[in-house]
């Protein structure tokens, strides 16, 4: 079974390759660090239970919600 680090490498390398995005060694290291920083939070966000929530469509951010 792949480790978390291996899965991250697969995600990054596969994603970049799919887009045809090239990255040199330093950029690849930055991408790896960004992934390490953001991914746990993204997974938490995706599993966040906000309950029954009707999405505010095109919210007017200058005002309180309707």
């Amino acid at each position, binding site marked *: 079974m792949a480790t978390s680090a291996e899965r991250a490498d697969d995600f990054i390398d596969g994603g970049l390759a799919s887009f045809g995005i090239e990255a040199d060694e330093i950029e690849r290291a*930055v*991408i790896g660090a960004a992934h390490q920083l953001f991914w746990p939070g*993204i997974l938490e*966000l995706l599993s966040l239970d906000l309950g029954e929530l009707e999405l505010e469509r095109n919210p007017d*951010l200058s*005002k309180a919600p309707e």
Partner: protein
Amino acid sequence: MSAIDLTLRGQAAAVASGEADAGELLDASLARIEERNPTVNAVVETFPERSREMLEAAPEGPLHGVPVVIKDEWPLPWRAQRFGMAEMLDEAEPGESGPYRALRDAGAVIVGVGNMHEAGASSTGNASVYGAARNPWNPERCPGGSSSGPAAAVGARLAAGAVGADGIGSIRFPAAYCGLTGLKPTFGRSAMGGHHMADVTTMIVSGPLCADAADCRLLGSALLGEGLAAGDPSGLRIGVLGGDVVADDVAPEVREACEEAIAALAEASGGEVRRVALPDLDASALAAVLIANGEGLGGFDPQRLNRMSPELTPLYRGFAKYRMLMPAAAMAKAARVRTAMRRRLAALFEDVDVLAWPTVPAVAPPLEAPLVDLPSGTISADEANVRGAGLANLTGIPGISVPVGLSGDGMPIGLQLLAAWGRDELLLDAAEALEGANGRRWVESVPPLAAEQTEA
């Protein structure tokens, strides 16, 4: 005292009354830039002839003849913004941006362009195509970002006011790091025309950075195109969080200074401190980052990313490429978090007038290693700072950072106040009440750089 050392409103009053000559004031600001800018790298370009032309054409507005610095995020008729970058991925052309028009119509004189963090992408200000701006309180420390130059310029007293932009704390962070007052207005209330993301952003606003709240009121009124009238903050209900990282995972001296300031504000206004809860604040910070990143992807495509200038920092190049990999599902969830937080805040602002917590959890870190020591451990300043800042941009509410102390090593500490939509004036009123409560001690503090050279 030289007129350039007066407050913004003091300069405006001195010019209006004839006590100060606007041409001499402009020359004094340019001379001050020449004298002190090598230390702080706050101003990346001056254009004395253009400034003098602005002055000659200046109307008798509220800022008549007053020099102001503007961030490298706004186009001017004679200069395209560079956004702190070696190469912008979006097109940039000279033009009349909203803040330029607002300043011109108020009679102000743009004396120079303020440095900024590359692409507005950090709270530190430690990377820019012009080289990092430096903190006037200690040039080895970060000035804050992304409006690093505007803050460093006002902190070093190169000018008494500057225009910044705040997409996720980019006015409030440098205000806190440089000991200034910085207002992030309610979304949509301040001039945004001409910004390269004006048509797509739901996060970025222009706003003032000044020594104190009254100056922010004056400059902010110009940027908002309406008078930010002073009111009475009596009986202020101040909401504070408990058991949350923005209130608890804070360097002890920052926490202590902010708690003292909150108590002083409550006492000065005859108000009270109420403990409140705001669930999912951490999720709101990430949601803000995701939405800001998504809105900035318009100019990105794989081929363009592969052609990025090698002069851009590796950090920018790498992160720009990573942004392409962020999942759409997370963006969609971020929009739901925005809805949830807006509704929670609307309910919360029925019970309190302002929310208060430290603008940043630790004072300005070293430029070379922008890490901060918090009770939870040592983390990057960016990771720490976004926690308490993203909410205002995510939801649209206004926020202000007010200086409330100095650390043991002489670096400024900032308290953030947040209010409901459209209550920007209340934030200024509260900030002024706080200034009064501490005898204006912190807004009148001057960095050693400014004090020594002024006395000399």
